[in-house]
């Protein structure tokens, strides 16, 4: 008799989700699904609000990556004002977005995923956490904690607070850095770079121990979408869209992000509040694509900083084409921390960071504007339609985690097929299924614009939908 396994909630991710695994009549895994069970409806709530409020309101979608929404929203506002943002404001926005990459990636790697890698997927779940990590590698754990704090400190310097800073506005930013703040950031960079290096070198060593996981965690051919610079370099704030295939062949290049809807369509599934974007030209079943660190490194031609470029070349050696294994999201994430720190260092020399010309003032000049930037988890689109008074008429948010939804479903299916051999699911297998999701660092608050925390449950179902077995972890 066919069966279904349910993991609810999935742990050590941002938000609340569950996984169901469906077995066929012979007890083999037929399919697995990642369900996001929370709903918030931000796109509807924002209708009727004034454009100027949008960055601060949309930042409330998430406590982990508010900066990403702040920036994409402000850029949508820039488009509606049809204004040229002062160069200094654009550089300051870049600085905040890079700091966001550092703090968010540090959380994902050091707090949520490193325990699996250092303590092992089969280790005792009681110690498989940040405490276990601290006991085993105190220097790494402390460095990771300080790295996240460093990223947040930059955000706080610019925006006045670490979470939900109302600093980006349509047309620019509210204020710049002062000399003391520039010095304070500069002083923390050597330690932060050393931590990023330590973690990256450690990951490359540890990855060799997890060959089976690397082979089976979302390792399938797919498309990858990211912003790239005009010269094809890694980009996070401006730039245009590039889509590459599993061989790293460029399928579409230098697409204006304002044309995203020509290329990306959004499907919904009855089993989840998470939308499922796909490449329109290939349809829902063939158009699966991935975003985020893995996609950015697969899509770009170079990173643009010395240490990250060396690491990118090492990363390229993992595969002759694109690196398809979701397990390597971790390595890509660590390379991005390294590169983001290097880019912060370069930015600090720019006198514009202390400029007073930070905002272009304009009225409503367009009724439709699209803002696009790279969030730590992937490409983010804010699409606004306003009336002549600047009140929001329609809002569409295309979030990185949603864009990875189809890939996450395929990932849990692949892991389940590799590791589940009976209806008895050892804890280590349960953890591997979760870890496959964790590799994407999904942010469910963002992707469903939801509220809540996040426990884990696995259920086993037969073909008639009866629950045959269940495991819950809180």
């Amino acid at each position: 008799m066919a069966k279904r396994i349910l993991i609810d909630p999935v742990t050590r991710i941002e938000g609340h989700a569950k996984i169901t695994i469906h077995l066929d009549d012979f007890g083999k895994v037929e399919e697995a699904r990642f369900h996001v069970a929370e709903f918030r409806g931000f796109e509807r709530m924002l209708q009727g609000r004034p454009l100027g409020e949008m960055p601060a309101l949309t930042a409330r979608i998430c406590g982990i990556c508010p900066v990403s929404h702040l920036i994409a929203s402000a850029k949508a506002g820039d488009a509606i004002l049809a204004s040229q943002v002062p160069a200094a404001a654009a550089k300051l926005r870049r600085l905040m977005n890079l700091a966001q990459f550092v703090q968010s990636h540090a959380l994902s790697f050091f707090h949520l995923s490193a325990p699996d890698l250092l303590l092992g997927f089969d280790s005792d779940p009681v110690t498989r956490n940040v405490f276990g990590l601290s006991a085993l590698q105190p220097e790494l754990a402390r460095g990771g904690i300080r790295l996240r704090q460093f990223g947040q400190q930059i955000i706080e310097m610019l925006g006045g607070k670490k979470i939900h800073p109302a600093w980006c506005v349509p047309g620019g930013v509210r204020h710049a850095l002062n000399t003391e703040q520039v010095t304070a950031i500069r002083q923390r960079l050597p330690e932060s770079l050393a931590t990023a290096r330590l973690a990256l070198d450690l990951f490359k060593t540890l990855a060799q121990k997890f060959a089976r996981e690397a082979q089976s965690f979302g390792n399938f051919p797919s498309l990858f979408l990211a912003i790239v610079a005009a010269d094809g370099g890694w980009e996070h704030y401006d730039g245009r869209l590039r889509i590459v295939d599993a061989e790293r062949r460029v399928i579409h290049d230098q697409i204006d992000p304002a044309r995203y809807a020509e290329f990306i369509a959004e499907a919904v599934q009855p089993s989840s509040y998470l939308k499922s974007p796909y490449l329109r030209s290939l349809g829902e079943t063939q158009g699966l694509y991935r975003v985020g660190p893995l996609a950015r490194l697969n899509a770009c031609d170079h990173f643009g900083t010395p240490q990250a470029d060396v690491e990118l070349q090492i990363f390229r050696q993992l595969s002759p084409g694109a690196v398809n294994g979701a397990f390597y999201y971790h390595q890509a994430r660590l390379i991005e921390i390294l590169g983001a720190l290097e880019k912060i260092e370069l930015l600090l020399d720019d006198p514009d960071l202390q400029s007073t010309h930070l905002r272009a003032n304009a009225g409503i000049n367009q009724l439709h504007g699209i803002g696009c930037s790279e969030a730590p988890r992937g490409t983010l689109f804010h699409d606004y339609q306003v009336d002549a008074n600047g009140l929001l008429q329609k809002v569409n948010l295309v979030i990185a985690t949603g864009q990875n939804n189809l890939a996450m479903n395929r990932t849990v299916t692949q892991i389940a097929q590799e590791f589940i051999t009976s209806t008895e699911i050892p804890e280590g297998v349960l953890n591997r299924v979760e870890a496959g999701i964790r590799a994407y660092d999904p942010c469910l608050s963002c992707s469903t614009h939801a509220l809540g925390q996040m426990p884990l449950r696995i259920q086993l179902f037969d073909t008639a939908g009866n629950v045959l077995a269940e495991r819950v972890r809180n």
Partner: protein
Amino acid sequence: MATAPSIIVIGIGNPQRGDDGIGPLIVSHLHARHPALARCMIVRQLLPEMIPEVENAEVIVFVDAAVDCPIATIEWGQIKPDQRFSAVGHLLEPTQFLALLKLCSPQVPQAWCLRVGIEQCQPGSTISDTVAALVPDAVKQLSRFLLTIPQLVPHA
């Protein structure tokens, strides 16, 4: 000559979730009335990245809402590090925060927790009158306690 130990008072809670905001409210009143008694921090949640901000403290006093105390009562207690941890996310209880601090820092502060029994913490609601009425008493107890710390924790 002995100097005063460095003391941090941390109010934990979300003012937009009803009585959960009582910790921040008490600490903001304490800071307004007795700014020299301690360094005051207000946080919505305790997170690992706050550790660098407190790692030189000799004493930490947490002020938090409690659902397991009788409503509108104040409970005091010294707390110790406890690293029993939920696998779910990255939020920490005060005892877990101390445990992580112990693993990451050479100095572990002595810690106390003032807990206020709360009535409700619905999203979007404000602090209930019953619980808000405790603020003056809590500030008084807290300030008296902070004045006794140099005797409790003699500075080397």
